[in-house]
């Protein structure tokens, strides 16, 4: 009987193929959007994880405040780090191989008629080592330049291209805010990361120069650490946390006022605020499935009205209410599942195209595909029930009299 109902439903749906297609459009759009976004998102995460792993799995970052994970800006109330924190980590904590101080700002770099808004980073040579940057042209900083905070800088490939084209920038002077800065080196490109974020878009200068001339304070915004080979991430985090609490004088029952992130967390952060993405996806999915469901309910009510006589015939020859209910419910479910199927296929195609465009792996998620079908099924049941009930409760005499 169910099989008969499914066959009947498919017939009824294809009898009005165009109308059926328009009806399921809401579900198609919702499901395909979710599948495409999840597929691309998953591919991006894989890409970022791969990128980050290239840096080495022994890298950690320490940031001031507790909301660094949410990507929010550190508020002024939060006590920033300073250069002594970095040196303490470097010298006193045995598991630390390299500790590099980092400070950032967004500013415009100008050369001649060209200019580019970019990340200005203040640090020292330890950062190049910990983050595995290689020099393409020129050199990194001299110890004396770091000591005195000399206005010299090393460029990322993107900034070079934008200010100098393919010309050799070494020896030229660029201007950042009021600071005239001599270019001493160019770093080898790491290429675009996932989500299109450009990893080569920065100007690096000695941290003293940055603090004095760009930031106007002595803060250090991030400590970039690499720990010795063979130290587990958990142990490293634990020791760093303990050490930081000590040097920042945090009482036994006070919370940390800093965050230590390992590679996995860093990659999550870099891959773009996963929680927000998930929330957004859920909202898109919910709204479009609701719209799709109302579409299905509407068309099923029309269908019940149009087929009143047919329902009357079925009831007269001995169909029970339950059987008519099943027939129309199955029709709504099949309709909805067809929408889900088209949506999944379309979503995978879009996900594939998107992955190609962003140059990330094509990573379809079987779980999400199954979930899409489950939701389509549920939409069919929920929104098909009311019209099906209406059909089942028709009076056969009345229904047969209807034109």
């Amino acid at each position, binding site marked *: 009987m169910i099989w008969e109902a499914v066959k009947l439903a498919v017939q009824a749906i294809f009898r009005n193929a165009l109308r059926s297609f328009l009806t399921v459009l809401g579900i198609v759009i919702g499901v395909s959007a979710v599948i495409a976004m999840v597929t691309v998102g998953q591919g991006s995460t894989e890409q970022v994880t791969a990128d980050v792993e290239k840096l080495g799995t022994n890298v950690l970052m320490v940031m001031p405040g507790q909301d660094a994970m949410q990507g929010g800006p550190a508020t002024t109330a939060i006590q920033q780090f300073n250069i002594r924190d970095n040196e303490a980590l470097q010298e006193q904590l045995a598991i630390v191989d390299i500790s590099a101080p980092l400070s950032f700002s967004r500013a415009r770099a100008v050369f001649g008629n060209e200019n580019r808004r970019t990340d200005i980073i203040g640090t020292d040579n330890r950062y190049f080592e910990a983050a595995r940057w290689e020099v393409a042209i020129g050199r990194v900083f001299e110890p004396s330049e770091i000591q005195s905070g000399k206005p010299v800088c090393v460029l990322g490939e993107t900034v070079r291209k934008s200010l100098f084209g393919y010309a050799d920038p070494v020896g030229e002077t660029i201007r950042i805010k009021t600071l005239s800065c001599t270019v001493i080196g160019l770093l080898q490109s790491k290429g675009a990361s996932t989500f299109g974020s450009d990893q080569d878009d920065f100007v690096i200068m000695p941290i003293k120069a940055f603090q004095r001339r760009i930031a106007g304070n002595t803060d250090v915004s991030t400590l970039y650490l690499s720990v010795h080979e063979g130290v587990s991430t958990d142990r490293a985090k634990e020791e760093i946390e303990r050490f930081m609490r000590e040097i920042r004088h945090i009482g036994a029952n006070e919370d940390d006022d800093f965050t230590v992130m390992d590679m996995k967390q860093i990659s999550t952060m870099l891959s773009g605020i996963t929680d927000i993405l998930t929330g957004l996806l859920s909202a898109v999915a919910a709204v479009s499935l609701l719209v799709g469901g109302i579409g299905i309910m509407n068309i099923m009510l029309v269908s019940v009205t149009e087929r009143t006589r047919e329902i009357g015939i079925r009831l007269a020859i001995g169909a029970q209410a339950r059987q008519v209910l099943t027939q129309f419910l199955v029709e709504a479910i099949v309709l909805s599942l067809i929408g889900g199927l088209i949506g999944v296929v379309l979503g995978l195609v879009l996900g594939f195209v998107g992955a190609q465009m962003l140059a990330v792996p094509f990573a379809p998620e079987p779980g999400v595909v199954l979930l899409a079908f489950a939701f389509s099924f549920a939409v069919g049941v929920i929104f098909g029930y009311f019209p099906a009930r209406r059909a089942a409760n028709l009076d056969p005499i009345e229904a*047969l009299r209807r034109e």
Partner: protein
Amino acid sequence: MAESTGKNALIDLRGISRVYGEGETEVRALDGIDLAIDEGEFVAIMGPSGSGKSTAMNVIGCLDSPTSGTYLFDGVEVANLTRDQRALLRRHYLGFIFQGYNLIARSSALHNVELPLIYKGMPRAERIRAATAALEKVGLAHRDHHDPSELSGGQQQRVAIARALAGNPRVVLADEPTGNLDTTRSIEIMEVLRDLNRNEGLTIVMVTHEDDMAQFADRLVWMVDGRIESDSPTQRAA
């Protein structure tokens, strides 16, 4: 004597009333009807428009329940069955033929005839055999894959007869089966029904407006204002 004694009647209505509405607008479509029909009878019901013929057919066909009275079908009280119980009764014991054919559009003749068998839960192969046999009985075996829209009115009505027969019912109820057909087609339909009654002993209750068609039956029931005014053998049977 055409009138049944009622003792072993297949259909036995006693004091059946069917009232629509209440108070001022009350309509007594059936007003205390006694009617007994034996197995194998071919009964025609006639009467002026609005006299309650269709209402009577609906009650007999268990599409409707009477407001009061007793209805014994094969000795079993069925006047107060639930909706679903009446559906089962129709499914297993009753066949319907309507004035407007009432075939399902865009569905082949064969599928239309199969429909009651699907609800009976008959396996597909057996169903097709039974439906084909029913179409053969009405002389339409060669048209089994045609849609209703590809068939003439007479052919459509024969498909409807096949559908009513397919489930092997105890009674076939036909409400003005020739109402939409010209005389030649009407006579063809009546001949099909008469043959089924004579050769297979099928019990038939039929409403008609035309005396010529009523003459195919054995017995004629005249209704006026929701009551039976006369009940006698037709000229043919007499």
